């Protein structure tokens, strides 16, 4: 299966909205039709043909080469197929995605996986603030699927997470898992201050603890839980190091007691 390849000519003058370039919206289109798709976010018209060199292939597998942080909404709304990106991407990559696989060989901006519903996103670099989080006015953030970030993430990762799993192999900024409704957030390295701020339910797992844990989380002792083995077994093909973390004894904190206290933070090696 030859992928459909889009190679960016040069860093665009304006931010581009790449949400039309998802497999289900490209399926059945000719090279000419694809080249005419508009991507501009200002009044100056920019088409796929203007910004990219296009090599036709199977639209189920889209490859974007030479990407840069001005390409926003990469893979947004994707329902099936695969998108591979070589380079960085801008904001809202994979937003509202319902299926398929988005692979970014680079860094991603803010609101990556925002309100995502299903599918998988992998980022080899780092991601910005609000990974999986809702935009202003939305009730819930991510509600399904899996996000793997090999680097670090910014503040408020998994904000208002409702379902699904976010795994960060690096560390995180402050307020990781803020206002979580349910779901799972795993941070292998150290988190910033106050993880789980006002979380209702859900699970946060911190491999190396946090800079400051809110006093509204109650220590429930150290445990080795079967549930962690299940998460580990699921994650092993994606992140062997995370799977190894989950086999160790973890200290459980219940909270946020400022809300309902049904959420939990597990902490590995406390330092």
């Amino acid at each position: 299966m030859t992928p459909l390849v889009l190679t960016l000519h040069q860093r665009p003058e304006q931010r581009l909205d790449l949400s039309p370039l998802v497999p289900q919206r490209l399926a059945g289109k000719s090279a000419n039709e694809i080249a005419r798709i508009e991507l501009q976010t200002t009044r100056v018209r920019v088409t796929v043909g203007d910004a990219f060199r296009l090599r036709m292939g199977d639209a189920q597998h889209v490859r974007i080469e030479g990407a840069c942080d001005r390409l926003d909404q990469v893979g947004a709304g994707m329902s099936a197929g695969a998108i591979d990106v070589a380079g960085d991407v801008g904001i809202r990559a994979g937003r509202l995605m319902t299926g398929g696989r988005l692979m970014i060989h680079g860094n991603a901006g803010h609101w990556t996986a925002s309100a995502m519903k299903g599918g998988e996103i992998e980022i080899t670099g780092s991601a910005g603030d609000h990974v999986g989080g809702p935009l202003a006015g939305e009730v819930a953030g991510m509600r399904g699927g899996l996000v793997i970030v090999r680097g670090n993430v910014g503040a408020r990762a998994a904000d208002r997470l409702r379902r699904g799993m976010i795994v960060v192999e690096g560390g995180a900024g402050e307020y990781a898992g803020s206002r979580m409704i349910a779901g799972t957030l795993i941070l292998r390295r150290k988190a910033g201050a106050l993880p789980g701020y006002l979380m209702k339910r859900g699970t946060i797992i911190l491999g190396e603890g946090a800079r400051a844990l809110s006093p509204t989380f109650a220590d429930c002792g150290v445990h080795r839980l079967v549930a962690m083995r299940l998460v580990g077994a699921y994650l092993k093909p994606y992140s062997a190091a995370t799977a190894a973390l989950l086999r160790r004894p973890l200290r459980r904190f219940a909270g946020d007691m400022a809300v309902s206290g049904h959420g939990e933070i597990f902490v590995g090696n406390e330092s």
Partner: protein
Amino acid sequence: MRTLTVKGIRIDDTFAEAFGMRATAVIITADTARWARQTAITMTGFATSVIGCGCEAGIDRPLDARATPDGRPGVRVLLFAVSTSELQKQLSARVAQCVLTSPGSACYAGLAGTESLRLGNALRYFGDGWQISKRFGGKHHWRIPVMDGEFVCDATTGLTKQAVGGGNLLIMGRSAQATLAAAEAAARAIEKVADAIAPFPGGIVRSGSKVGSKYKGVIASTNDAYSPTLKGAVKTALDADIASVLEIVIDGLTSQAVADAMRAGIAAIVKLGPKRGAVRIGAGNYGGKLGPHHYHLKDLLP
């Protein structure tokens, strides 16, 4: 009845008559293989016959730690009942009373089916609000806090309507000891067959029954035609040299599993031979009009 002889053992030219059933499977794991097995034995206790127990249940096979969802040693258990509602009732009661209660246990779906039965979805209320729902990788399970940590249980398990109950072998020998040796050999062989169980004690039943009774209101009574002490008094099915009869009843998730189990059982009896084991193998049926599944012994010979 015509018979044929295989390695000195007489095989009746007859068939086992079996019925369609509803079945499900669960995987029980624990910290050790011993506790996984103990939990499964407790859960499948008092589950020999749907007539008096509500369901028929047994251990399908032990599972290596690598073959279970949580990487701990486990056991796969099969449950059979005559209706979906009775199967649900038995599954919920048995998991709640025997698996939830067992130290370190966890319970997972053991069957993928288009239809499902409630597992954790029925048990989660034990958590009294502290239960935690987790969904990932296409699975949904519940975490219920208990006194030794947490009980983890899949939300649902699969249901099959293709299951078959009532495959059987009648094992006849010259002495009680030899007949039991043959029946044990057959039960051990059937244990190894996937998707099939023999629900009676150790896989063996000694009180085969016939339909009806001389007493009003008794629906089943002793199978006098196969009772050696009545050989001279009733219209017997036994030869002069038969002193003891044991039966193996087989339930399977598919008709093929029942046939495979019967084949394995016959092969084990034949292998043991007539000197140390049985001299004749038969099967029970009701004339062929009641059950849709017929297993002819002559088709199942080794």
